[in-house]
C-alpha cells in the first residue's frame, strides 16, 4: 500500500454544561460557553494516531466551524496530526446534518487522496451521530459506526473493527477506502506532545477553505441547505424531587433508608 492517508473530522463544540436556554426568547445561549474538541473526536483522533504510529502515513484534520476553531486544529496537530483544514464560511452556519455532511464530504473530496475517514460517534451539542453516515453516503464509502478498536490489514487493504451492540459486539471487516466512527470513551486520548507544541502553534499548516474555495453552491449549505427546522427550544421540565437529606452516621442513614424502602416496596 502506498502511504496511508487518514482524515479525522474534528468538531469544536461549546462545553455542554455551559449552554443554557434564555427563558424569555426560548433560544440557546452559547454566548459565554467555552469551547472544546468534541469528546468522541478525541477518541477518533487517538485511534487514527495509533494507526499512523503502527503503519506510518499521515493524519489530516478537517473541521467545519467558525474561524476560532483553528486553535483546536492546532491542538490536534500538537497531539500528532500533520495538517489541518478548516471549512469556514458564514454560509455554512445553521446547518443540520444534511448540509454538514455534504460540506465535510466535499472537504474530504478536495483533499483528493484518503484511505480512511475517522469521525467521532456523536457530537455533544445536539446532533447525534448522523454526520458520519452522511459523509460516507456523499462519498459513496462503506461505513462502520460505533467502533471501539480497529486494526489495519494493509496487505488486503482491509480495516477490521469492533462495534459495540446492545448486549454484545461484532467484529467486521471493511475494504479501504472507508469511514469509521469511534465511540466516546473507546480509548484514552494522548497528551499533547510538547516536542510538537511550537511547531503546531506557529508553523503547522492550517488551510481555511470557504464555500467558494470548495466550489459549493450556497443554496446547498448552511441554513438554506437544511431540511429540518428547529420549531422551538425550551428548558426541559424536570420532575419535582423532594431532595430530602438524611442526617446522622452512616448506620443511621442506612436505617432510615431501610424504613423508606420498606414503605415503598410495600406500597
Amino acid at each position, binding site marked *: 500500500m502506498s502511504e496511508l492517508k487518514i482524515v479525522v473530522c474534528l468538531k469544536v463544540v461549546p462545553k455542554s454544561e455551559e449552554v443554557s436556554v434564555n427563558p424569555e426568547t426560548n433560544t440557546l445561549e452559547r454566548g459565554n460557553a467555552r469551547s472544546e474538541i468534541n469528546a468522541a473526536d478525541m477518541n477518533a483522533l487517538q485511534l487514527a494516531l495509533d494507526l499512523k504510529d503502527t503503519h506510518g502515513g499521515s493524519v489530516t484534520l478537517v473541521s467545519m466551524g467558525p474561524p476560532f476553531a483553528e486553535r483546536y486544529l492546532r491542538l490536534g496537530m500538537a497531539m500528532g496530526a500533520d495538517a489541518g483544514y478548516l471549512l469556514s464560511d458564514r454560509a455554512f452556519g445553521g446547518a443540520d446534518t444534511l448540509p454538514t455532511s*455534504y460540506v465535510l464530504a466535499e472537504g474530504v473530496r478536495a483533499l483528493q487522496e484518503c484511505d480512511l475517514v475517522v469521525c467521532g460517534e456523536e457530537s455533544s451539542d445536539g446532533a447525534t451521530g448522523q454526520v458520519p453516515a452522511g459523509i460516507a*453516503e456523499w462519498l459513496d464509502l462503506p461505513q462502520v459506526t460505533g467502533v471501539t478498536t480497529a486494526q489495519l490489514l494493509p496487505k488486503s487493504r482491509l480495516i477490521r473493527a469492533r462495534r459495540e451492540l446492545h448486549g*454484545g459486539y461484532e*467484529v467486521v471487516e471493511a475494504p479501504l477506502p472507508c469511514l469509521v466512527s469511534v465511540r466516546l470513551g473507546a480509548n484514552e486520548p494522548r497528551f499533547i506532545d510538547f516536542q510538537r507544541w511550537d511547531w503546531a502553534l506557529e508553523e503547522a499548516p492550517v488551510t481555511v477553505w470557504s464555500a467558494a474555495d470548495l466550489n459549493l453552491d450556497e443554496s446547498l449549505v448552511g441554513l438554506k441547505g437544511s431540511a429540518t427546522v428547529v420549531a422551538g427550544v425550551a428548558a426541559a421540565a*424536570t420532575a419535582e424531587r423532594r431532595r430530602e437529606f438524611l442526617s446522622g452516621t452512616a448506620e443511621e442513614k*442506612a436505617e432510615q433508608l431501610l424504613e423508606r424502602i420498606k414503605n415503598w416496596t410495600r406500597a
Partner: protein
Amino acid sequence: MIDPRYGPQEAAGVWVHLEHEAGELASVSKEILGRARALADERQEPLTAVLMGSGVGGAALEAVSLGADEVLVAEHPLLDPYTTAPHAKVLDALVAERKPDILLLAASPDGRDLAGRLAVRLRTGLTADCTDLRINPENGLLVGEVTGFGQGILATIECPDHRPQMATVRPGVFQRPEPDASREGRVEKIAVELSEADRPVRVMRRSLKHGVDITQAERLVVAGRGVSGDLALLKRLARLLKAEIGGTRVAADAGWVGHDRMVGQTGSVTHPKLALVCGVSGAFQFTVGIQDAGTVIAINSDKDAPIFDVADVCVVDDVFQVLPRLIEYLESEKKKNGRSD
C-alpha cells in the same frame, strides 16, 4: 435547498423500520409501533412496518398484532446479519417507490447507522434520538422532540419540505403496546435482488448475549464511578431489592456493567418505581435516563454533587459505609420475614 427525492404532495403513510435479532422484534421497535399507530390514527393513514433480514416471518405477524396494517418483508441471506449497504439499498428502493410521509427507526446502534445513511441518500431531514413524537395540529408535520443540547434543553424539530420526515426514537420513551392477536394486517413479500458487491462490509464475528432490557425494570440499582468497580456489593443489594443493575457511561466503559445496562442519553431511558443511584455525579446525559423514575435515592460522598438536585432522598456519605449496612439490615429483615411466613 438540497432537493428532496419527492415532496409533501406525493407523500402518504406512516412507516416504521423494525429492528430484530434472529427474528425476534427489538423492544424499541415495539415501542415505536405503539406510538406510530397513534400517529397514523391521528392522520387517518395506514401504518406500514418494514422488516429486513432472513427468517423474519414470525416477527411480521407480531408487528401486525402490535398495530401494523401492512408489513413489508424483505428477506435475503445478504441482509442477515445487519450491515449498512444492503439494508440501505433495499429500504431506499422501497421508500422511493412507495413514498411514505413519515419514516421512523430505532435510535439503536444499527438504527442510527442506517438512518444517517438513508436520510442523505433520500436527501431528506432526520430528527435523531427523539424523546417524543407528535403531529403539529397547525401544519400536520411530524414534531420530534430531542434533548441533548446540554443542560436540560429540549428542542422540537420539524421537516417541512422534504420527504419522508425521518426520525429515530430513543429506546424506552414510549410504552410498549399490548399485542392483539385478533388484529388483521397484510404481509407482503418484497422481491430482493442483491449480490456480494452490494455488501462491502462483512461481519466476521458477532457475540450477543440476550441484551438485558433495563427500560422495563421496576427497580434499579445504578453504579457510577464512585463504586470503584465493586459490583459484588451492588449485586447483593439488587438481589435483595429484586432490582436490575444499571450503570453510568463510566461504569459501562470500564466494563463493570454491560453496555446494555447503561442509563442515560446514549444508554436507555428507564421507568423504575425506585432507582438507587450509587456514586453517580449526576451529569445531564445521565439524569435524562432516570427522570421518569418514581423515587430516586442518591448516595454520594460529595454534598454538592448535582445528582442531589434530582433525587428524592439524598444520602451524603461513602457508598462503602452505607451500602454494607443497608444490605445487612435488608438481609436480617428478610430472615425475620422468612420466619414469620
